[in-house]
Every structure is written in C-alpha cells, then in structure tokens.
C-alpha cells in the first residue's frame, strides 16, 4: 500500500489509492515514453544544427543575428513560467481549490505568451535582415530547431487553455488531475529543451 501511495503523491486521486493509481501510473509512464521519443527529435535537430554551424554560405552568422538580451529575457520568462506551473501543481496537491490552480495556469499562459511574442519578434527581425531559412544551410538548421521548440510551447499553451476549460467543466476529477500532471511534465520538459537551445544556439553562437 505504501508503495502505491508513493507513486503520485501530488495527485490525491481519492480514498482508494489502489486501482486509480495503477491506471494513472500507466498513463503517466506512457507520457514519459512519448517524451523520450520527442526528445530524440530535438536531439537530432541539435545534431543537425551542430553540423551546419559553418554552413553560412557567406550569409550572416550568430554574431550578426542574435540579440542576447532578448534571448535572456525569453529564458527568464520561460523559467519563471515553469515556477508558476509548479505553483499550480502545489495548489493541486494541497487542495487549494480550482480557482487557485486556474490562476497559476493563467499566469503560466501569460508568461508563455510573452516568451513566444519575444521569440517571434526576433524571428521577424532576422527575416527583415534577409536572414530567413532560405539564406543558408545554417539558417535552415536554426529555423528547424528553435521554432520547433516554439511550436511545442504553442501546443502547450493550447493545452493550458483546454485544461482551464476542463477544470471549469468537470471540476478536479481524476482525469483532469492526471492531465494537469502530464501537462506539467510537458511544460518542464520544454523548459529543459530551451536551456539546451539557450546554451548551444545563443551562448555557444556568441561565445
């Protein structure tokens, strides 16, 4: 029994910690496996980026293109958004009610939106200088990797909206709680990927 209650201590799925938790365990494990597969995709995009760093074909490279201040702000927004999602998870764990969870989710959504807005502004600036993916292999690799992360963030934000609606419609039923748990995993996962992008693409490119 102790082993089972240890499995997902943050979820409080109900009095019977047996079957409900076994089922959740399967779903959450499946999601971890999915993230492993997704991680391979990112890994390959990173590898492609690394091999194409020299392929600028006479076009602009990192030094001409990157605005480290903006990238730093993006990093901060995303890191704080992970923290605020942690707030939502804690609120769920300590029975603080649907309102508190929703509030944290809204804050997370806003931070994610801020991140995306800054990122899109940077992309627009690059394309404005004629440095779109059509310019060189290097820029193709850049626009293959970084916006892929941005697409994941967008998907996560749509997911946040869906969860806010589901909390209102269904209340904090087990299905909604496990979805929130998986969304949290996904959001923190994107944070980790961004750390890689910030280190390899931005810091590495400007070093």
């Amino acid at each position: 029994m102790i082993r089972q209650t240890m499995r997902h201590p943050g979820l409080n799925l109900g009095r019977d910690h047996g079957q409900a938790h076994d089922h959740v365990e399967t779903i959450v494990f499946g999601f971890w496996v999915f993230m492993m597969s997704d991680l391979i995709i990112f890994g390959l995009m990173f590898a492609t980026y690394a091999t194409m760093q020299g392929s600028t074909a006479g076009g602009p490279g990192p030094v001409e293109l990157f605005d480290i201040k903006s990238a730093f702000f993006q990093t901060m927004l995303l890191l704080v958004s992970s923290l605020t999602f942690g707030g939502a998870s804690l609120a769920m764990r300590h029975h603080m009610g649907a309102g508190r969870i929703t509030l944290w989710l809204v804050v997370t959504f806003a931070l994610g939106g801020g991140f995306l807005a800054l990122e899109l502004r940077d992309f627009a600036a690059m394309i404005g200088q004629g440095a779109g993916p059509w310019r060189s292999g290097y820029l193709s690799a850049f626009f293959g990797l970084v916006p892929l992360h941005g697409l994941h963030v967008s998907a996560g934000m749509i997911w946040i909206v869906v969860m806010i609606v589901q909390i209102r419609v269904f209340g904090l039923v087990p299905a909604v709680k496990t979805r929130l748990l998986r969304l949290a995993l996904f959001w923190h996962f994107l944070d980790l990927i961004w750390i890689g992008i910030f280190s390899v693409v931005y810091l590495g490119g400007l070093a």
Partner: protein
Amino acid sequence: MNGQTQAGGILGRLDLQALPFTQAIAHPGASELIASGAAAIVVLGAIATLAAITRFGLWGAFWRGWLTSTDHKRIGIMYIVLALVMLARGVLEGAVMRAQQAFGLGGGFLSSDHFSQLFSTHGTIMIFFVAMPLIAGVINYVMPLQIGARDVSFPVMNQISLGLTATGAALLMASLVVGKFSTGGWTAYPPYTEAAFNPGPGPDYWIWAIVIAGVGSTLSGINFAVTIYKERAPGMTMFRMPLFCWTALCTAILLIFALPPLTVASLMLALDRYLDFHFFTNDLGGNMMNYVNLFWLFGHPEVYLLILPAFGVYSEVIATFSGKTLYGYTSLVVATMAISVLSFSVWLHHFFTMGQGANVNIAFGIATMLIGVPTGVKIYDWMATMFRGRIRMTTPMVFSSGFLILFVIGGLSGIILANPTIDFQVHNSLFLVAHFHNVLIPGVLFGMLAGYNYWFPKAFGFRLNERWGRISALLWIFGFSFTFLPLYFVGLMGMPRRTLSYSEPLFQPYMQVALFGAFLLVAALAALGVQLWLSIRQRDQRRVFAGDPWNGRTLEWATAAPPPEYNFAVLPVVAHRDAFAVAKENGRAYLVPERYEDITMPRNTSLGVVMMLASTALGFALVWYIWWLAALAAIAIPVALIARSFDPDTHRTIPAAEIARENRAWLDAVANTKAITRGDEDTARNTGRAAPEWEGATP
C-alpha cells in the same frame, strides 16, 4: 516560398493531366497502358469493395464492428488485411520489374520513368505498408493475449495508429490514380528529390505517406512498450513471457527510438521542398550527407524491428510444432536485446562508399559483423528446439524450415557486405538486392505468413486449409529462390541495381530465371488467396471453438477461438513459462472460475476514422498545394483530439453475469468435446481441444 508553391486555384496544381487515363489517351505506349491499367484496378477494386458492402447491407456491421472498434484483436486483423492488400500490389510490381529486366537486353517495354516509379513504390510499399503493418498487426493481435491482458494500454491511440498507417497506404494508392509517385527510390535521397530536380508531386507523395504513417508507428511503439511493462497478468514476470512478447518489446523500443530520425529527415526534406530551406540542397550550405545519416539511423534499426517479431513467431511455431519447450529461452532473450542495441551502431554500412575514412568504415563493418553473432545463437536455439522433438510439418513449419535454410544464406551474404573492401566492389549492384530480399522475404515475410497460418484459427475460430497452405509455402520458398538467388551471380558480374536495360547478353539468362521465379511468387500469392477462399468455404468442418488446435503452450490458446472481446473471463494467474502447457499437464486448464467480476472495456469511437480522413485530406492537399484543404484538415486534427478529451463517457462495463454466462457456455462446450491427439490435428475431429502429449514436453 517558391514561386511554384503559390500557384494554382481551388484545386492547387491538380488538373486532368494528373490522371493516367488522360496520359494513356494522349500518348498510348506500353508504359502508359500499364499505368492506366493499374490505376483502373485500384479504382474498380475500391468501387467493387464499396458496392459489395452496400449490396450486402454491411455498412452498419462494418462501422460498429470494425472501423470504430477499439479492440486490439480487430485492429490487429485490420492491419493484416491492409498489409495483404498492399502485398498484392507490391508483388505484382516486382513481377513487372522482373519482366522488364528479363526483356531488358537493349530495351524492354517500360519507360525509364515508369520503371523508376515501380522500384520506388515497390520498396516503399513493401517496407512501410506490408512489413510494418504485418508486424503491427500480429503484435497487436497476439501480444496482449500472450501476456494475459484485456487490451493494449491505450486502445484509442491504437486505433489512431491504424488510421495513420492506412492514410499512408491510401496516399500511395492515390498516387497510382492521381499524378505520379516519386522516382527517387524508397530512400528518396536528396538532392535528386529536391524541388530543383523533381518539382512534381512524386516526392511529396513519398514524404507525406512516410511522415503520417511514421507517426502512427511511433505511437504503436509507445503503446506496445507500455502494454508489456504495465498490463501483464498477475505472476507473468518478464522472464515468464513468451518469446514473441520479448521480441515485441524490443521492436517497440526500436520503434520509439528509430522512427524519429525518419520523421525528422522527411520533414526536413519537406521544408526544403515547400519553404525553400537548405538542409540537403546542393547550394547555399545544404548537406545531403545529413539526410543519408538520418535516414539510415532510422533505416537500419528498422530492418531489425521488422525481423525481431518474425524471430518471435518462429520461436513460438517451432516450439509448438516440435512439441517441446523452447530451447535456450534466456539466450534468445539476451540475443534479442543484443540485436536491438547493436542495430543502432551499424547504420553507416549503408553508405560505405560515400566518403568516410577507412577507419570509420571498418568500425561500422566490425559492428555489422558482430550483429551476426546473436542471430547465429538464435538459429542454433531453434534447431536445438527441433532436435528430438516430435515435429509436425504443418504450414507454419514449412515456412520455418524454409526460413532456417534461406535466412542463413542471406545472413552470410550480409556478413560479406559488411566488409567495406568487398562492399566497394558490389555496392549498388544486384548482389545487394539479392541480399536484402534474402533476409526480408525468408525472414520477415515467411515469419509473418507462418504467424498468419498459426494464429488464424485463434482469430476466426477455424483452421486454414493445410494442403493449400503447404502449396503456398513451397511456392514462396521456390519462388524466392528462383527469383533472387540468380541475382547474387549477376550482381557479382557487375549488373547495377535499378537498371532499366543493359547491353551485356551474359546477364539475360539469369534475368529469365528470375522472371520464372517471379511467376512462382505470383502463383504463391494466388495460392494464399485460394487457401483463404477454400478455408472460408470449408469453415464448418474446420471449427476449433475450444481454442487450442495445435496443443499450444502459451496463454493465447487458453481462451476461446475467436476470443471474447475481453480476452479472458478471469485474468489468468501465471506461475511458469509456457503457462498453458503446464496448466494442461497439471489438469488445471479449463477450470470453472469461482467468481466472475465486472469488466470495464473502452467504448467504440470514431476518432480513428476521423483522424484517418483528416490526415488523408491533409497529405493529399499538401501534395497538390490545395492550401485551404490543408489548413482545414490541420485544424480538424487537434480539434478532434480536444473534443475527444471532453467526452467523459469513454468506457462501458460488462456485467459479471453476462461474462459468467458466456464463459460457462464455452467451458461446457469444451468439456463436451473430445480431446484429440496430434495425429488428428488436420482432421474435422480437431475442435481445438488437445489431449496430453508425452513427458518432457513441458519445463
């Protein structure tokens, strides 16, 4: 964006010129007539199927029983049906290519463009839409039964996987009727497949068929792995699982890790073609070697993820029909695992000649030779299983014997190719074509056909016709031998692969023998059809409702044939390997359970069909630049998924009383049927209950 991608009105770049019929009328020639004939077969076949379903009023049954079903058994069967339909097309295309080369001395009858499309579709179909759905289908059907589960972990995702695979197959079929398929081979190497050289829809058909079906396969991998880790019956420890489940697990892990490189490579190619990226182009810093590395980073694990489940089938078939427990179980598990790990370390041997240094080549050459060691261990284990067994030469055993002999030849020619210095001499020749057909046909295809014959009675409740099964198996074996063994010789003589015509008369006799072999293979395919047709007609004499026609050893034989939706009325408790064989020996098979409980099963859902239609529309629209439809479909997919997450009522409960009634009726029927000895296996007396065998048959 390319100027070209912006062209077109409401139908994008699609117009009447895309139809092969228009082409055949405008320029009648052998190639055009064959192309429009094939297109006509596809269209008429589709119309005939739809008409037959309407005529017999089966739409309701088809919708409720199959298309919307979340039952892993139904989904498995649909995968296999899809694979067999595509197999028919793939075999016929192969035969047309053999005919072209048999008459190819200084000409032949096909245009070079048509021939290139043939080898491109043949390879794409056989790998992605025959071999992959066959293994997905057999794993889907068998694995949950073998581990004593009620279903896979994610039944709805399973349905979506099937839908996405069917989408890929549908796009390939569409390419036969609307426009042309890629001429870039099944590997679609850039820069040839880039927009600069190949602006037409062909490579786009390839990309979207592969990407969409690939996502489906990744999801299947996740599903199978989670099922094996989480859904095993009480007492079914990993090392009590039937060997087929181990191979399914390794295949699932390979799917999870090996499919992403393919998805990445083909999407990068799509970005190059659609949005003017430069991943693999000749100019502006593109590097096609990235594609080749990514593709084979998928491609090599792919061949092992195809062969491993076939190895699993041979392990089950050989043990059952030798009446013995599997020899060297642990070594087979270790070998399977070793192959899975090593399969990620050999991809470079697919392009030894493409510019790496000798040291890199030899490292991959050695890794490639190493992978032969665990495979060799397996061959010996199977032979040791047969040794001193009471072997029954049933259809699956004929396939297995053909496999043991022919696969060793194919494996050894692989070891030859693993040596980079030899590879430099024979790469890109028919020697290579002979090699990979020699492992894929006797390995994967024979294994899957053995599994089809072995588990068919479980799935449909009646045995297949043995006589026609053996005829078909022998035709496959000899057809393969005549078609592909001569190619080793012409390959060594220097004939390149994918050759439309040649001027060396020495090649021609070999090509004619190969054409004869191709006729045998077409006959083998026809024999499979005859076998199925006769078996359905004779089904009343072939019923095996008790569920155990072969004196099976593993849990799938412990339930009725066909099994109820929930597989087992009460989940079995496992204490041994070969759980059902031990239960029969101890007289603990077919016991009436003390109590039954309610069973919760997922409801039917149309989500899989919706995903299939939307992704087919998406793929087709992207191929033909029909942007409004692409946008619509791309929105429909997430909307459908989100809508599904708002459905609170996804499961239904089957009451214990209903289960008890069904289960007791079956157990009564089993108790009243006579157990037969193995001598009566292929007679009407075989109703699926086996008399105890000899001592030493169980561990």
